[in-house]
């Protein structure tokens, strides 16, 4: 069986067409199997977001190949590529930007259905179901509201509802919690995991926070300066980090724990 997402020796360069280039990713090999949850973890500028953008075709690799749902992206015609994209969804970092401020929630969430060519009359049911599965219930209290009237957490849940409404097979969540209050991050991550389970989809969760990665993913891929430095099962990696970058990330996450673990748990 082929993987849902497969990167082989991928290089990505950024820069002006004829100017100096900066490597965002170098020789990256990564696979995510069907139904798997992986986390891509690294500091700002490590190239995490580029992986998400590669998978949805917003970025072209300079070398190597990208395979999504068993199909190599290179050489796909525009129509095939679009059809493929409909089976892949992305949740962006900033829910204040990723939602069209002039559209009501009902239209925002229905967009993937519209894009997939589903008749207008058959859209409301899945839209309402998606909103309710994200705890925005009753859905009809949210359908006619605009993003400006929602809190940050609600906006990000609308963005996730949009990502899940058309039952994608691959979901890329690009730091979906980093713009949210610390107290909401766990909830949003939990919702992503619940939906991923119910759809048996593949989840690629991108974060700089190993604590969240631990909670979401079975396997963690650590990126540093555009290269993968570690790719191991989550608990194993947390118990015995090999690479200095992983150790740095772990120390940073643990420094927070010290103050919280002493708190009474309920």
């Amino acid at each position, binding site marked *: 069986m082929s993987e849902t997402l497969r990167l082989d020796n991928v290089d990505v360069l950024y820069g002006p067409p004829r100017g100096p280039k900066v490597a965002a990713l170098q020789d990256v090999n990564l696979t995510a199997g069907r139904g798997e949850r992986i986390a891509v973890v690294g500091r*700002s500028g490590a190239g995490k977001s580029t992986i998400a953008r590669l998978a949805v075709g917003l970025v072209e690799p300079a070398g190597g190949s990208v395979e999504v749902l068993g199909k190599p992206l290179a050489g796909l015609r525009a129509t095939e590529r679009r059809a493929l994209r409909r089976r892949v969804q992305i949740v962006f970092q900033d829910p204040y930007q990723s939602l069209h401020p002039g559209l009501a929630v009902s239209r925002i969430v229905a967009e993937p259905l519209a894009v997939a060519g589903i008749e207008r009359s058959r859209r409301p049911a899945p839209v309402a179901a998606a909103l309710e599965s994200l705890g925005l219930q009753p859905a009809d209290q949210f359908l006619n509201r605009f993003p400006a009237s929602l809190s940050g957490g609600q906006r990000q849940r609308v963005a996730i509802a949009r990502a899940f409404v058309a039952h994608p097979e691959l979901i890329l969540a690009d730091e979906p919690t980093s713009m949210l*209050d610390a107290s909401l991050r*766990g909830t949003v991550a939990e919702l992503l995991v619940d939906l991923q389970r119910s759809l048996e989809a593949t989840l690629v969760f991108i974060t700089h926070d190993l604590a969240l990665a631990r909670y979401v993913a079975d396997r963690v891929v650590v990126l540093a300066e555009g290269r993968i430095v570690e790719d191991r099962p989550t608990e194993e990696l*947390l118990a015995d980090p090999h690479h200095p970058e992983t150790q740095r990330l772990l120390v*940073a996450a643990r420094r927070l724990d010290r103050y919280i673990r002493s708190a009474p748990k*309920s």
Partner: protein
Amino acid sequence: MSRERRRLLRPSTLAIAATGAIFLVVVIGAAVFADLLAQHPPDRASGAPYQSPNSDHWLGTDDLGRDLWAQLVHGSRVTLLVGLVAAALATALGTLAALVAGWWGGLRDAAIMRLVDLVLSLPLLVLVLVLAAYFGRGQTVLILLIAGVLWARPARLLRAQVLKLREIGHVVAANALGAGAGRILRTHLLRRLVPLLSSQFVRAALIAVVVQSGVAFLGLGDPGQVSWGSMLYFANNASAILTDAWLWWIVPPGMALTVLIVGLAFVGFALEELSDPQLVSHGPAPPVRRRLDPTEPEPPPADVVLELRGLAVAFGGTEVVRGVDLQVARGRMLGLVGESGSGKSALALAVMGLLGRPGRVTAGATMFEGRDLRRLGREGLRRLRGRRIAIVPQAAMSLLNPTMRIITQVTECAASPASGTGGIQPTGAVGEVAERAHAALERVGIPRDRHRAYPHELSGGQRQRVVLAMAVLNRPRLLIADEPTTGLDVVTQWEILDLLDELRAEFHFDVLLISHDLPLVAARADDLAIMYAGRIVEQGATGDLVARPQHPYTRGLLNAVATVSGPRRRPIPVAGEPADPRRLPGGCAFAPRCAHRSEVCSDSDAPLRPLASALVACHHAPLEAPEPGAAGTAGGPGNAGEVAT
């Protein structure tokens, strides 16, 4: 707080827009009701030639005996028609060109933009005149010609806007989910271009009207069509300017043209201001209200740097800070923690006197170094800001000016020791001030060879270091840091917090650290204050408060955190949604989300009262030690303890 910028017109602009609209209504009214307003035909003789105004011919007649009043009202039709149709055509053409060039880019963009440059470099009126003479005098030809030269400017402006919108979140999102270009352009781009489109349309209409009148005045227009320009042409031919006839033959069409052009210009001005809020300059902030209460508040004890007493802040009619008492003690970092919308940023801005309208302090005192800041007045506060009190506002690192080198920006923040006013420095001190700026940047870890960099050449962490350098440059007594680490990765977060600690020890200032991130603040602050819906709900020394939280909300915040060490445990969210300051429940604002709520909670708000060594605002405190299964927060779906693996 909402990030949507409300787009409102200033009253003066509103007056201009209203005047313009009235002018346009007059002209459009004349065009629509021309047949009712004039009893004579405009294009045939209806009396003797060269009549002065009389009861039958209100404006007299021309050299062919045609009624001038009829020509005036009917002339508005042609003038408006050419103006609006040509403008619509030009705007449509420009939009199309902009979408093709901006969205697809590449060769198409290059080709279209070279064409735009070419058209823009041609002298418009001369071009139309030459072409009109060449192609003949039909109305349609004129409209096409005008549109053919007017599309270029909207095309260029709209293309720039499309390029900007391409990168905006929801457009990228639509692209990522595989929406076709047609769909993206229609729902995502066109809608957001409307403000710019409408102002460009009005501007094109204005130029089209001028060109049409000019062409007709020169006798190059359609001779069968009466327009204001053609009236002037005939008047000129009949030498009306040499007789009294100019009063009723030249002045009325001239006035009519003026009314139309001024109307269009005014409406266009208002639309432009709407489409580009950067043009709007905001008036000065309202003066800080002096307290009516004549008694001078007692100065706080000497070891208290900042003390808030019953501080209340409202935005319009909505109270977002509802009576906060808070002390920053000398040498102890105070962490203020709350969710988005809890009022913590409004509180920081209120202390600094930086609340933008419609926000204002409605009650309370802010004591700093023994003085009530609210009594200082605007000028006094301005002197204090950046010197005795510094603030690192929310998202400060994105507030750096992208067009200025960082060293220039840091130097600008330096208050010159000689003048004490910042900004303007006596020439002798310039070198010394620049040296201080360099030293501050080096102190925060920006090496000297990076000082001349622009903000975009630095990473987020480095930009935050620059902001800290600006804040400590003038040796403040108190630093208010509002979410100083938001948007940074975990490793960089610690670097910034460590740096803040070092600076604090070195420069001896005190810190009020504001954040939504309880673990992060708890790791650094000596004291914690938890804010919910505009009030402090729990306050105490960090160690006690984290180990023995007494307010259900504090417990909820602690349980919501994912941890990397210890047994793998599901973070438990605080149930429900954050309180909406516009619709607070009666009684305790946290009650709707609280598992411990009882009748008393909805009857009355709990005052902040001492409990052991802390302060707690909860009717049910002290809470019993939580038992397994009895969550500190109301249960929601999926709070089932351990994660199944």
